[in-house]
């Protein structure tokens, strides 16, 4: 069975690494363990260990969820040039983008899972066995699109790599329709995630048509920021070369998306504050505080400052082309969007409550620990996928070799 050889060799690639690789994996494993310990606390005592309340019923977990869905969607920025514009330089890194998408969707789903009060009942969302409220519930839609995106981003690269492994050219006719589907699907996952919030007519802060466009625009900032940093790291540590054109194009896209994102911020501020009314209360709370309470002010002003510095770097060609400055812009924009989209979009929707109460939220150490663990898990998933993907793409393993060596396609251990 060639597919078993393929999978076994993939696992072999994962288990074969330098000392630095194993140190990285071990470091991530430690963080995942920290997250597991914190989650055990949460399972034992309930969500009371978080800073959440009836007033602010979603917090840090859902904030990270929304952000990670954006990262996943942004993989499309590698897929479009690679397959639609036929850019050869993008072809060589598109697998990494898809790996990143898989890791990000996986992380996003994990963030929802840890946010559940009854994770033991997760099977209630399954068809037939459970009772899935599709197509009425937007959350049900989100589960469908995220699962679909996960499968698309696992299936397409697996097919391409499998063809390489067998020494064949992938059949474009067979996979191209799936690529097109994946492109639309990428936009859909973040749109549906935005609809999750904007569907709530009870929350004027979310209930705006601008939310989905803003989500997409900010995803095309935070996504490329992470992809650029990850690609540079892979180029350096995995000695996996690719053209500089990839980085330049991504930096350009990121700059434009950040300009649009900041424009959207301005649009929202104008619309809410020119004739300020009840609908502006959350935005006022976010930027200036309400009734003397303003926990989120540091988050949003920091986000704004980081994004403004990043947009300057990304807009000026000379700065953008400087490797160090670009790295800085990526870190700033990634952090800025993370703050803005997470703490700055999810939390203020709950403040004030629909009954006008201003009740604040601060994540607890346990929430931070669980979240850190999930982020480490994402990094681990990506590392493993990238390790196997690069080895197979480079042709380190081939079916012919496996057969010649007469290795049985055993399930490796460890």
């Amino acid at each position, binding site marked *: 069975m060639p597919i078993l050889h393929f999978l076994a060799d993939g696992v072999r690639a994962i288990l074969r690494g330098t000392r630095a690789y194993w140190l990285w994996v071990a470091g991530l494993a430690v963080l995942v363990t920290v997250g597991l310990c914190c989650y055990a606390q949460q399972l034992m005592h*309930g969500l009371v260990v978080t800073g959440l309340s009836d007033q602010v019923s979603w917090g840090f977990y859902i904030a990270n969820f929304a952000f990670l869905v954006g990262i996943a969607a942004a993989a499309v920025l590698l897929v479009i040039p690679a397959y639609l514009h036929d850019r050869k330089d993008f072809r060589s890194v598109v697998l990494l983008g898809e790996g990143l998408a898989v890791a990000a969707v996986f992380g996003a789903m994990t963030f929802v899972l840890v946010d559940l*009060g009854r994770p033991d009942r997760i099977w209630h969302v399954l068809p037939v066995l459970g009772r899935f409220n599709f197509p009425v519930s937007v959350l049900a839609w989100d589960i469908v699109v995220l699962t679909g995106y996960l499968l698309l981003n696992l299936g397409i690269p697996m097919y391409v790599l499998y063809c390489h492994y067998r020494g064949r050219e992938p059949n474009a006719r067979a996979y191209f329709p799936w690529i097109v589907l994946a492109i639309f699907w990428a936009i859909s996952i973040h749109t549906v995630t935005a609809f999750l919030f904007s569907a709530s007519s009870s929350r004027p802060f979310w209930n705006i048509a601008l939310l989905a466009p803003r989500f997409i625009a900010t995803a095309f900032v935070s996504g490329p920021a992470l992809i650029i940093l990850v690609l540079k790291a892979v180029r350096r540590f995995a000695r996996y070369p690719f053209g500089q054109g990839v980085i330049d194009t991504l930096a350009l896209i990121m700059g434009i998306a950040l300009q649009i994102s900041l424009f959207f911020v301005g649009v929202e501020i104008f619309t809410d504050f020119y004739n300020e009314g009840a609908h502006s209360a959350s935005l006022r709370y976010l930027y200036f505080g309400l009734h003397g309470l303003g926990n989120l002010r540091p988050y949003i002003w920091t986000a704004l400052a980081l994004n403004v510095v990043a947009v300057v770097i990304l807009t000026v060609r000379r700065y953008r082309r400087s490797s160090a400055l670009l790295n800085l812009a990526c870190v700033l924009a990634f952090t800025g969007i993370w703050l803005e989209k997470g703490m700055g979009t999810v939390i203020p929707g709950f403040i004030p409550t629909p009954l*006008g109460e201003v009740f604040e939220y601060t994540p607890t150490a346990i929430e931070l620990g669980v979240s850190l663990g999930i982020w480490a898990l994402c990094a681990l998933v990506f590392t493993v996928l990238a390790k196997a993907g690069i080895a197979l793409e480079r042709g380190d393993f081939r079916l012919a070799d496996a057969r010649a060596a007469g290795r049985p396609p055993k399930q490796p251990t460890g």
Partner: protein
Amino acid sequence: MSRAVSEGASGDGSGPDPVSNPARRRFLGSVAATAGCAAAGAPAAAAPAGAAAASPGPAWGGSSLRDAFGSLFQDHYQRMSKDEIDAALARIERNAKRTYGVDIHCEDTKPIPGVLFGYALNISKCQGYRDCVAACVRENNQGRDSQVQYIRVLEMDSSTRNLEESEHYYNPATVPVQGKYFMPVQCMQCENPPCVKACPVKATWKEQDGIVVIDYNWCIGCRYCMAACPYWARHFNWTDPKIPAEQVNPVTNYLGNRPRPRGVVEKCHFCSQRTRKGRQPACQEACPTGARIFGNLLDPNSEIRYVLANKKIFRLKEELGTEPKFWYFTD
């Protein structure tokens, strides 16, 4: 008459009174008024220390392995056979015995055909005693230390109806207060409930009599319904609800006031364990001012129909299209 605001005040919580009996209600009101002079501002009903209910108990449905498995694989309420429902009810009773040391009776109370429940509240009469809140907590077995309350009474300045100006934690020495009026808010049992649309697993739905119910054994605790509700009517069990043994209300039903597990959402269900048997909801019974009118919207001779036809009425956030079955009115 002016007296202390109470959250632990005692009203007559028992007695089979027919729905819509103003005389009986007024009588009860006066009983409650004389009996209720508990400490002002005590948060929720204070639980006596060292109560039997202290043990947190396992989260996954019960301490016996068989019951834990039974709960874990229990089907959706609307898909269960009569036998399965009976088994579930028996599990709930055993669980309550283990958790609280109390023999409760849990039944599956069905909607009465030809009944659609509605509520009307006279804000000219309500004086903010919060007796409804206390009675609700007792009747519906809310966790005492978790302070889940289905009713929130807002103190409003007489000049405004802006909720953002409302005081949620008002605590004067006595009510009524000059220049203020009070507006209790609870689940509106919307005809077009956003929470039901939000639920990804159909764990909450609108019953035939218009009550929006929750299957506490099916809810996955995602809390999307809480984000969707415009009335802040839904509450989550962030931890195990704890009730002192002597305060557990043993008369319960499946979709209503039975003891809830941790990690699920709950809310006002118009006291379905009472109202589906022709009794008043606990909040109405406890109200010392007679501000609350509850009844069958399909009965043209009901008191609530009289109010809707003859009083100046309004509904909260009507513009959202949720069609609440909870009206406010003034004299």
